[in-house]
């Protein structure tokens, strides 16, 4: 079968096995994505990593005791030893001067070492050759079956119920544990719930993602979601969604190429979502920020053009004189290309008129020029009166502020300063555009 046929087979989900794999990885990704959010916000992401590594000996022990591979027993073993790992981390930081990161390194590696010892023991005793326990290291989504999906769905339902009933409290706890304590919440119990959620999340993720890369599915969807929103609810939903997409993508690729482990592909697809988010997210995205910077720079150029033309008008008492671009560029140190584009934008916005290759202010343009000039000079008055800055320090600050002051701040400035007529350099502060409108 070629890739196309396999793809059709995967996404049409006519095959029951495929349905289980897809359902399983959606559940896994969604649970890990959502509940990883709490660890991420509590700055406990790497604790999730340590707990994931700490589950390995539990898996091994469960297999040794049971003698066969039954997922729910293995997962129970994993959860118990994951919890033991969490307690060990706590014990180390509490009973020694060692810091959290050292405790994490110790627990993570020592528990993992024990897990490896047990796994190699199982392998060499013969029983383990077919155990497939090594799939827990890097994950193998293709192995998810009907029973696994049921187990996952039940666990997921329980966790969502707990989440919904404790949401407000968990939110406070995540945001500010100190405040939660002072507000009379049982922080010990809440932290227990959060740690249990983390342990359970890690445990259910084992099969698809594996021990080694578990941290990624806890952190990356949450980190990506964080780029889009400041709202915890939205973040949880987004993170769960990103987790699901990554889970399905990982499962799809390991369906195409069965010899690849799933975990790394889940991580790589999650990281692509993360990179996309960090570039294009509506609020914090790098691209969005660059665009906003560009807009700001454009606005500054426009403001400066309007200001210098207005000032020239003030000096000559003729607002509608025509100026060639060369003359304008001498009034301010504009770059040639920057000025050309700025003039063009101003013309199209109706603030300037172009006539025979020369420019002049329209009525709108005069008003805008007056406003920029007024903001500049008002700010200078403010700095002089309230900050007692010397006159030679006023201009540079005001140069920045004139572009930022909003109408609301402007009004407050005017009232606070009592509508001053002259700026500290004894230049007139223009108000006439307001009188007109």
């Amino acid at each position, binding site marked *: 079968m070629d890739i196309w046929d396999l793809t059709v087979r995967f996404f049409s989900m006519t095959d029951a096995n495929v349905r289980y794999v897809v359902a399983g990885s959606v559940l896994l990704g969604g649970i890990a994505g959502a509940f990883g959010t709490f660890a991420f916000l509590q700055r406990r992401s790497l604790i999730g990593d340590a707990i994931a590594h700490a589950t390995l000996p539990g898996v091994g022990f469960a297999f040794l005791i049971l003698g066969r591979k039954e997922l729910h027993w293995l997962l129970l073993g994993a959860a118990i030893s994951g919890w033991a790992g969490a307690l060990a981390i706590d014990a180390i930081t509490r009973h020694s001067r060692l810091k959290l990161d050292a405790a994490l390194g*110790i627990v993570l590696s020592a528990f993992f*070492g024990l897990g*490896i010892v047990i796994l190699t023991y199982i392998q060499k005793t013969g029983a383990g050759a077919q155990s497939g326990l090594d799939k827990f290291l890097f994950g193998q989504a293709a192995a998810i079956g009907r029973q696994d999906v049921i187990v996952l769905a039940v666990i997921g339902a329980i966790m969502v119920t707990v989440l919904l009933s404790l949401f407000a409290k968990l939110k406070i706890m995540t945001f500010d544990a100190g405040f939660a304590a002072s507000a009379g919440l049982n922080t010990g119990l809440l932290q227990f719930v959060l740690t249990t959620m983390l342990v359970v999340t890690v445990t259910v993720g084992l099969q698809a993602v594996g021990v080694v890369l578990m941290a990624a599915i806890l952190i990356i969807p949450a980190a990506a979601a*964080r780029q889009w929103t400041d709202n915890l609810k939205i973040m949880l939903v987004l993170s769960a969604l990103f987790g699901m997409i990554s889970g399905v993508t990982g499962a799809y690729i390991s369906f195409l190429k069965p010899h690849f482990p799933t975990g790394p592909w889940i*991580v790589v697809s999650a990281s692509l979502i993360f990179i996309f988010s*960090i570039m294009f997210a509506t609020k914090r995205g790098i691209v969005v920020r660059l665009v906003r910077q560009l807009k700001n720079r454009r606005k500054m150029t426009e403001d400066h053009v309007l200001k210098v033309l207005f000032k020239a008008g003030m000096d000559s008492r003729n607002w509608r004189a025509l100026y060639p671009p060369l003359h304008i560029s001498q009034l301010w140190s504009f770059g040639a290309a920057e000025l050309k584009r700025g003039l063009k934008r101003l013309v199209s916005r109706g603030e300037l008129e172009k006539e025979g290759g020369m420019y002049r202010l329209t009525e709108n343009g005069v008003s805008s020029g007056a406003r920029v000039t007024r903001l500049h000079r008002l700010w200078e008055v403010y700095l002089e009166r309230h900050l007692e800055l010397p006159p030679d320090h006023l201009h540079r600050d005001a140069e920045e502020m004139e572009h930022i002051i909003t109408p609301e701040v402007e009004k407050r400035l005017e009232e606070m300063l009592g509508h001053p007529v002259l700026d500290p350099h004894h230049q007139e502060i223009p108000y006439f555009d307001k009188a007109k409108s």
Partner: protein
Amino acid sequence: MSPELWVIFTAILAASACALIGAFLVLRQGAMLGDGISHAVLPGLALAFIITSSRDVLPMLIGAGAMGLLTAFLTEFLSRTGRLYRDASLGIVFTVLFSIGVILIAGFAGQIDLDQECVLYGEIAYTPWDTFVVGNTNLGPRAFWVLGVVFIFNIIFISLFFKQLKITSFDPALARTVGISDRLWHYLLTSVVALTVVAAFESVGAILVVAMLTIPGATAFLITRNLQLMLILSVLVGVASALGGYYGATLTNTSIAGFMAVAGGVIFALTLIIRNVIDKTQALSTVSLQKQAITPIN
């Protein structure tokens, strides 16, 4: 020498080299950076294999060193521009790099002499058969010599630059005000960690490198309040873990590297318990003394 002895010495060297440089990671709260680097070197190793189709040491060192530094840089970069906490940034960077490494290994399985299990817990038991031959003389396992050189390099690095490493670990701000760049030394230390990790990688694997980087230093930190002594003790704990790991593993027929981590964990746990018992008994006996001895000022 018998193959067993070669394995033991290789294990001891791997543990010692890691323990020495790892002690500084523990002091700088950088144990998890060590964890990150030990994962992140994998794509560097894989690429070196694929490009040179050999297991020459130099390309591997370059590839891995570059990945180690990349981890440190990217973590910085993400925590600044992505406005993420540092631990999350590190978690993202190393898991992604490690995933790429695993995919490369699975995809180029024919060309890379590394398998997924080896990546995690090494194959120290096979080191005696990968030997270092000069002319007609068989000098013993390659891993032994590589680790030996790295161990000696670490000793020289730390003794030459002890004061820089100490001051930037204790008080980076003071270091900068007296003209010792904390950033420069952070990246130098990161590079040396990457070098050590690569050398130990084949023998003990990515995650158990973390055991040898973190556990001996942390154990020594519990025992002593003197930095030089801490470094020496750290190496001793490393050696003890290596010996305990080797014999434990031979006895149970399990992974040597895995058992080294377990042995280290047991030594650490015992030390932690003993330390607490000692501190408690001391605290009991000094409470009464302290009441008399109020420290004079001037």
